[in-house]
């Protein structure tokens, strides 16, 4: 399946991926409104990890055998198709953090802004290209099928 | 005439080799050709030349003029001028042979001349000064004529080609001299002019030079104040005039002349004893415009002396050696070893420290 891959050697650490992720998951989808008018605003589902000069953007890897789905006690974590993205049903989630406990990438966040739920990348499900990839100025994020 | 500033200075590098037998014993040109041939790679075939001292014992007191003529017309014009000012003791073509790599040659003529006394008196000049004036006049005003040697009992031989071929062309194996100076040239510009080869000579001075004088512009303007005309736009020419000025006109000893051309740094002067300090300080103050800046190694020949000198920071190579009464200098030690495999001593002269060979008095007389 097509996934987002990060190339840390060219990640500029600008965090535009996080910013555009927020926009993509905002109500208005307008960057200025999303940041200046929407409260609370969604959490970015991609996170730039940074240490010294190193950085890269990390989000859900949409594993083939997702530990989060295995560990999810409510069935909120799920896949709609065997090669589809790992999605999260906020309605079903009770915030038990089992997914957080097992995600080896630390790619799931606690979103407690409205209701205690997990927050993760949905590959901008339905869009041709995830917002983070589309807006990465340095092609440090690529969306491609590596046959995995 | 175009102003000089629009003319470009010729730039060249080279190899050089020379020796002098202080005893006055004369040897054929074979050795010097062999020595400069070894330094083949230091030249590029666009100029080679020699100066030889003691070669004309039959006319020891006449000025031996060597001239290039482009054509017969220039020879006629020039000879008129020579006739007007000099008694020609003898004249004729300089003997040459066909040699590898030497192209079509100009007319090469030799004259043994004495200045006419009455003209000297009218001009109020010494014979040497008069000769300098006349040589400059020919070189500057007569199209197609060029005096490339004008000393007594010595001569310069030069051409476009590698020096070993030039030596062969002029049949230098048939001359015998107590001092030989050779030069292989690596000009950076147009070939084709024989007069551009080294050595450059004026009167008895013959000079070969390796390097480029960055101070050329001011050195030239300095000697021009004393009546020299730099017609050839070469570093060598200006060096020759500087020597002529300092040694002949200003009467300075050769050591002083060398110290003017390649003076010590102020730092070194500061650590000298008081008297020396004063001497060098004064030299630099008075003769600043005569300092030759930039890389050079030169060999200066004159009737009784051979001087080799390096620039003040040793930017060009120079090696010296002595074997008995013979003093050798060359750009490379191999150039000396080629003709003197086992010298008594070999040394590398210091910056600004001249290598001087002097003809012994009895030999000179």
């Amino acid at each position, binding site marked *: 399946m097509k996934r987002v891959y990060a190339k840390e050697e060219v990640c500029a650490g600008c965090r535009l991926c996080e910013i555009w992720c927020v926009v993509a998951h905002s109500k208005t989808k307008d960057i200025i409104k999303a940041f200046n008018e929407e409260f609370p605003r969604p959490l970015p589902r991609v996170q730039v990890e940074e240490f010294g000069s190193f950085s*890269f953007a990390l989000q859900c890897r949409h594993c083939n055998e997702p530990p989060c789905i295995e560990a999810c006690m409510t*069935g909120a974590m799920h896949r709609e198709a065997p090669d589809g993205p790992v999605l999260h049903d906020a309605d079903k989630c009770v915030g038990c953090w089992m997914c*957080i406990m097992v995600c080896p990438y630390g790619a799931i966040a606690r979103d407690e802004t409205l209701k205690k739920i997990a927050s993760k990348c949905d590959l901008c499900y339905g869009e041709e290209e995830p917002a983070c990839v589309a807006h990465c100025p340095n092609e440090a994020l690529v969306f491609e099928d590596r046959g995995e | 005439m175009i102003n000089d500033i629009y003319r470009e200075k010729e730039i060249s590098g080279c190899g050089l080799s020379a020796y002098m037998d202080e005893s006055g014993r004369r040897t054929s040109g074979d050795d010097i050709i062999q020595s400069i041939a070894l330094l083949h790679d230091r030249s590029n075939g666009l100029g080679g030349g020699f100066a030889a001292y003691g070669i004309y014992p039959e006319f020891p007191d006449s000025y031996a003029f060597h001239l290039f003529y482009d054509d017969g017309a220039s020879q006629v014009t020039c000879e008129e001028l020579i006739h007007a000012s000099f008694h020609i003791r003898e004249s004729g073509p300089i003997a040459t042979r066909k040699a590898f790599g030497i192209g079509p040659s100009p007319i090469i003529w030799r004259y043994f001349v004495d200045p006419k006394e009455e003209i000297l008196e009218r001009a109020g000049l010494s014979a040497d000064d008069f000769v300098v004036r006349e040589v400059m006049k020919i070189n500057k005003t007569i199209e197609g004529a060029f005096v490339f040697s004008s000393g007594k009992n010595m001569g310069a031989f030069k051409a476009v080609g590698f020096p070993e071929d030039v030596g062969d062309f002029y049949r230098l194996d048939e001359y015998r001299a107590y001092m030989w100076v050779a030069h292989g040239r690596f000009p950076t510009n147009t070939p084709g002019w024989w007069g551009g080869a080294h050595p450059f000579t004026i009167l008895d001075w013959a000079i070969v030079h390796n390097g480029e004088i960055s101070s050329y512009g001011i050195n030239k303007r300095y000697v021009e104040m004393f009546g020299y005309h730099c017609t050839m736009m070469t570093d060598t020419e200006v060096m020759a005039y500087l020597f002529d000025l300092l040694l002949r006109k200003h009467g300075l000893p050769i050591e002083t002349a060398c110290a003017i051309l390649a003076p010590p740094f102020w730092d070194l002067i500061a650590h000298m004893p008081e008297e020396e300090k004063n001497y060098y300080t004064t030299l630099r103050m008075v003769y600043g415009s005569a300092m030759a800046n930039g890389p050079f190694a030169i060999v200066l020949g004159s009737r009784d002396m051979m001087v080799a000198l390096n620039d003040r920071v040793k930017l060009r190579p120079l090696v010296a050696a002595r074997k008995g009464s013979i003093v050798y200098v060359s750009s490379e030690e191999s150039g000396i070893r080629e003709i003197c495999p086992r010298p008594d001593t070999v040394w590398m002269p210091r910056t600004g420290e001249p290598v001087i060979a002097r003809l012994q008095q009895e030999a000179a007389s």
Partner: protein
Amino acid sequence: MKYVIIGNSAAAIGGVEGIRRVDPEGEIILISKEPYATYSRPLISYFLAGQVDARHMAYRPASFYRDTGVTALLGREAARVDTEASRVILADGEAVSYDRLLIATGGVPFVPPIEGADAGGVTTFTTWDDAKALKRLAPSLKKVVILGGGLIGVKAMEGLQAHGIDITVVELMDRILGLVLDKTASGILEKKLVQEGVTLRKGTTIRKIVPGGDGKVREVLLENGESLEADHLIIAIGVRPNLRVAADTPIACGRGILVDDAMRTNVPHVYAAGDVAEATELLSGEKRVIPILPNAYRQGKIAGMAMAGQESAYLGGLVMNSVEVGGIPAISAGLMNPPEEAGYEVKRFLDKKNNVYRKMVLKDDRLIGFILIGAVDRAGIYTGLIRERIDVGPFKRRLLESDFGVIDFPRDLRSYKLSTVYM
């Protein structure tokens, strides 16, 4: 191929999904004692608390059995397995034959032999029915005693707290959640519980249950001599593998049904998974029962795939738990209370003010256990380090940092992680 699955929780569902990944055609029959379509067992405390309604109890969508082509025999109990004849005998006498059998019967609550335990108002808390019953009673309850400060007890307590009931937890160990936390971690949570009005009795247990006139519990007497008034008692000491169907069969059992790394029992075509199974434990390599949901699902899936002919090795289960007490999240995994002996390296970070605590247990530069209290956000990274037995030597000084992440991995590992997909 005909598959039969006994059970209807995570392991059983994992089994269905495992089979279907390999074999979209074969017949699957699922037998469950409980009458409900598969529901999330851990959600019963949320149900009790009223945070989750019946509709949201579903572990899988309503169309699950239809979508996966499963014949679900709900409310029908499997009584025993006839391995000779390859069939399952139901309590109602019906026999269901199988080509492949998965036993995923889970666990049963353990009720110790306490005097008076047969009194009314003494229940356990492991099924939806338990939760439903308790939820019905809740408005009438004033004081509830919970025996056991482990995960089930704490869950029950949380469920009941929502109803404004006075709760006392009786725990034999010196701390609550003793098996999954250490003293410091438990201390943080206990302090919070006490603030919220929960009464804790530690280092003691119930000696006797005293019923009232109505035959229902009225008072419990503790070993320490104390007497606690109670109108309900929940026994939450733990669960044990439900081995009933394996009884009197050649299926080898220890504490649970012994399985290999493909979840095979010693009897051909019979598999077991989940809380009933005794499978390899990751760190020790020994067989252990680890009754937690992620293990159950994975074992079920591995079993299902193996049953359908595609074997994938089980790397071993890992003890891990995520629990939240009084709004403070806590996650732990692996060996969090190493023995005193040498060879273990323990790193701790404590921020009492903000209820943040991190503890890492290492051996030979491998992470083997951790506890996170408060800031649990990227706990899975540690779990992954344990699971994959990664040499943390090069970055172990960073383990406790609040911004520890994949970025701290050595470059090769990091690029491997970023350029490949997990499993």
